[in-house]
């Protein structure tokens, strides 16, 4: 996938996230989000600060145009962009950066990609659920919400990887 087409798909997925926020309210315990995996799939050649700007803008638009609280997705998504390259380096190793390649399921294996998705989803949800609760929800509720949202988010993210991962875009 070319750079331009990647960002077009990225924009479309942002719209999909808005639709999810507005129409797919499955349960108070489940918060479905594909934003972390979208940020994870941003090409590695994009510098971190740019990735953070993209994440900020994405979170802001989703918050603004959906029923969420303005700033909540921004707060949770920017840290994902900040640690994205470190997560990739941790899971896939430094070779991707040396070869200036992006990760892919076929190339790097399903397990590693799944691990990366889980990590970024967990980070995003930890901040989101914590900030959304604002100290008013019991810990048990927060924990269940985190766990359920993580499972749901990882499953949906696997579909998004199928769309955004480089080797599937050829």
């Amino acid at each position: 996938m070319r750079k331009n087409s990647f960002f077009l798909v990225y924009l479309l997925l942002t719209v999909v996230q808005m639709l999810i926020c507005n129409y797919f309210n499955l349960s108070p315990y489940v918060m479905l989000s594909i934003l972390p995996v979208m940020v994870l799939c941003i090409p590695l050649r994009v510098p971190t600060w740019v990735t953070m700007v993209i994440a900020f803008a994405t979170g802001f638009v989703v918050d603004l145009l959906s029923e969420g609280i303005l700033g909540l997705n921004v707060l949770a998504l920017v840290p994902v962009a900040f640690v994205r390259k470190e997560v990739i380096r941790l899971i896939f190793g430094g070779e991707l950066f040396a070869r200036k390649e992006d990760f892919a399921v076929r190339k790097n294996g399903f397990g590693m990609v799944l691990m990366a998705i889980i990590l970024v989803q967990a980070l995003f949800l930890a901040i989101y659920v914590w900030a959304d609760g604002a100290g008013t929800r019991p810990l048990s509720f927060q924990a269940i919400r985190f766990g359920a949202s993580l499972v749901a988010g990882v499953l949906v993210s696997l579909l998004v990887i199928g769309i955004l991962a480089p080797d599937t875009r050829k």
Partner: protein
Amino acid sequence: MPKERSILPRIISAAIFILMEIAALQLLSRNASLQQIWIARAAHGVMGTVWGSTQKIANYFNLRKINEDLAKENFELREELDTYRSEAHARRIDSLGIAHGRVQGFDYVPAEVIKISRNKQHNYMILNKGYEDGIQEKSGIITRSGVVGIVDAVSAHHAYAFSFQNSDISISGRLGEEGATGLLVWDGVRSNGAILQEVPLQYKYEVGDTVYTSGHSLVFPPDIPLGLAGDAKVINGATNEIRVDLFQDFTAIRYVTVVHNTAFDEVEDFGL
């Protein structure tokens, strides 16, 4: 080193990250009252911690001055305490003299017991005063509760004395105000037990009568209360031996008065 691993982009990224998170928190607090309260509470907590820590650091650097002030105050309090202690000690010593009534012909010197033995047959004590303080050999040692010993040897600043709890010591005692006299010795068993020996059989007394110093010896002034008379035992059909419960508690001796007969040497010269 690869460009991505250099330090400057990381610092820039970290700075941008912090700015964006602050902006996100601002957005959150402006658009949701619940989150606004939550963020304000968290901010107050952080502020409290930060200011508390800075205060602790400031206090740490002030410790030197505080220590100096405390040391100065400690010194002043110690001096003040010493003054009170000296006054209290002087009053205590005075009260010993007053209790027994200063007797003419005797010198009184206050002293403190710095070492005493209690668990032997020949017990001793060491006082903190010596000949430079006016202590002389063959001086008596008394307290407000009775007689406790006799000075045996003196150095410049210390005196070695036989305790009354010593089988070699005997003092002249008297039964009641005007009763018979005898030799009072430690019974060798009890810490407050004594025996008044060689009391003539013809002299009657009551159990509970007070035993005093007789004044017949050159060492102790007369009429110092020593203890209470108890049961008697006839010895060889000639004399009584009377059990005496001493007033003095030998386990709690600290301040004493050393008494010395000013005529001691003169009388000793008679060689009696």
